[in-house]
């Protein structure tokens, strides 16, 4: 029992189960999955659970990259939301050219994705450069892109809002005809499988943790910490591009100031919820990914009870504070002390009797 409790993955799973249990008691229709037909005439599944796996996909994808960055550099990238705006804007620019209302796409979506991916990787590399070579704290280094990102995204498309009418482009963020499960879920699962294969068959995970735990001793052991840190930021860039494709495809358009707003906070939260130390070192990828879905479950639950989207952060904040307080080592220590004191007190009482 204590081994299960000590396992890192226990925290997010317990949180997820707790939320689901709450929903089960409060309103069992939460688990209802209905088969419907969308506006294009395709059979689709709908219901809160489907919403969670649909909207949680981007967050899960970002959590992958954010976990690696956190583990290697002991800091977080706060520019992912802005980077999504840049990558999404680039994709639309490649697809539309200068015409903002194209009838046909200029290039295949695949090409646009590759270009967007390269741009996102370049910005990731820029962040990584500041962090690894100039030794600037990750949060501060990424503050630069956070400030400029949405402006750059608007500049790429001349501040116009291209709209793509081709229904094929909407497949990535919606449904492929004939498949009732939302596509983002498949994309997220593909990313998860890829990262697990990478972690299993390469040394990436080991090296990242080594750099995060002790940079100078990992250097003495023949690992290049500068390169590893830089690499994690580039990998995060790829994750950003995938998330951007989903986000842009959902709308078939873009809104520079709103797209992926505050998603960096949710991604960092997912990593923290997964029980990973935000100061770097050891990480558990599965826990982070489950953490992402926990956050989405919380969001969906709150929306279900008609909490306005602007008030959402207040509830999230309470959950976050509770979680970090419970998982804080100092708090745990004092609680164990308190428990043992209570126990010994009881024993004394027994002895007195």
């Amino acid at each position: 029992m204590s081994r299960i409790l000590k396992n890192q993955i226990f925290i997010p799973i317990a949180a997820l189960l707790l939320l689901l249990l709450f929903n089960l008691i409060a309103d069992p229709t939460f688990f209802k999955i209905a088969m419907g037909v969308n506006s294009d005439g395709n059979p689709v599944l709908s219901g809160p659970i489907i919403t969670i796996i649909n909207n949680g996909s981007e967050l899960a994808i970002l959590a992958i990259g954010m976990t690696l960055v956190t583990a290697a550099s002991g800091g977080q990238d706060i520019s992912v939301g802005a980077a999504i705006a840049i990558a999404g804007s680039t994709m639309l620019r490649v697809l539309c050219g200068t015409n903002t209302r194209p009838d046909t796409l200029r290039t295949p979506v695949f090409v646009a994705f590759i270009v967007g991916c390269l741009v996102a990787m370049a910005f990731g590399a820029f962040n990584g450069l500041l962090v690894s070579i100039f030794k600037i704290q990750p949060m501060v280094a990424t503050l630069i892109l956070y400030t400029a990102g949405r402006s750059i995204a608007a500049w790429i498309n001349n501040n116009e809002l291209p709209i793509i009418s081709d229904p094929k482009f909407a497949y990535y963020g919606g449904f492929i005809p004939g498949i009732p499960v939302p596509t983002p879920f498949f994309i997220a699962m593909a990313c998860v499988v890829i990262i697990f294969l990478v972690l299993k068959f390469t040394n990436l995970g080991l090296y990242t943790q080594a750099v995060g735990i002790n940079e100078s001793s990992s250097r003495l052991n023949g690992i290049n910490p500068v390169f590893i840190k830089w690499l994690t930021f580039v990998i995060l860039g790829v994750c950003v591009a995938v998330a951007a494709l989903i986000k842009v495809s959902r709308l078939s358009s873009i809104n520079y100031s709103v797209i992926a707003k505050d998603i960096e906070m949710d991604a960092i939260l997912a990593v923290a919820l997964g029980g990973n130390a935000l100061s770097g070192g050891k990480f558990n990828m599965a826990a982070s990914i489950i953490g992402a879905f926990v956050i989405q479950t919380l969001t969906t639950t709150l929306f279900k009870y008609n909490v306005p989207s602007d008030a959402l952060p207040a509830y999230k904040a309470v959950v976050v504070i509770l979680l970090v307080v419970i998982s804080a080592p100092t708090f745990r220590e004092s609680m164990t002390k308190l428990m043992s004191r209570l126990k010994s007190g009881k024993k004394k009482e027994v002895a007195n009797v």
Partner: protein
Amino acid sequence: MSKITSKFKNMTDTNLLLTITIVVFFLMYIGAIIFQGKGFLKPQTFFNILNANAALIILSCGMSLVMITGGIDISVGGVTALVSMCCAVYLDYKGGNVAVSMLIAILIGLAYGIVQGFLVAYLDIQPFIVSLAGMFFARGMTTIVNTNPFNVANESFVALKDTRIIVPGMGSVNKLGKYVNAYVEIGVIVALIVVIVMFCLLRWTKLGRSFYAVGGNKQSALMLGINVKKTKFLSHVICSLLAGIGGYVYFLHVGSGAVTHAQGAEMNAIASSIIGGTMLTGGVGNVIGTFFGVLSLSTIQNIVSSAGLDQAWWTGITIAAMLCIFLVVQSVVMARKKSAVKK
């Protein structure tokens, strides 16, 4: 020349970065006067920068203090919004008086500081996560208090808001040939007092020096007999208190409550502190530098908007570019200085 280099080497980190900031600000302002024409020569242009950024100066002072102690507080923007909304609701719906609304602002700030400081200092939770949750909470609470933005019509408040303090001898003659006095708002006076008090606190008091000690090296601070936890706690309390005061100054400037108020103010405060020579690693910084950091930031914004590049994106890109240059310069200068000391 060699004298200057040796002086440069002997400078403390704080003074070195401070000098760079002040020089850059003056160069930028002179550049603005040369390239943008006479608008920047009028004292009122400078005073308008102060008027618009009084709240940011106060917020940045608190932010610098936390950063000097080695932490960070990204909740200040949220607290600003929460304070303006609470005060607006109190003044408008309840018809209350201005003094009580000031008290509300200070109490909100204090409460925030005590909770966040306790979590950071005594429970050892990362300041980033704590203040992130604080920011979420403040923004969410603002919506819960009131969703729609609205203006305050309370008479005594409006009178206070419209109070102008005339700066003698700084006025100019306008197009109609009339002499117009130069003025500043009350917020600017508050901001200047805060800067002076914070400067004295950091320079001459035992508490102020212990902030630097804790930020520089926790272990040695502990060896020196400084109560590290209490120092950290106090840094957060003062920062949030200043966020409360800054929130009220912001409220005094805009005269309304809205959820979108002070959006991104925390990032501007961090950026100003960094430009002002405060290092996020702790132990280095100066509120005078922060003051000039805010001025540099807003001068850049003014230059961008008066140069006709008023598309919104230019401001973001220029601030980011400036931040980037400053960060890289800081990192290079510090690295070179370290190697010079070793030699």
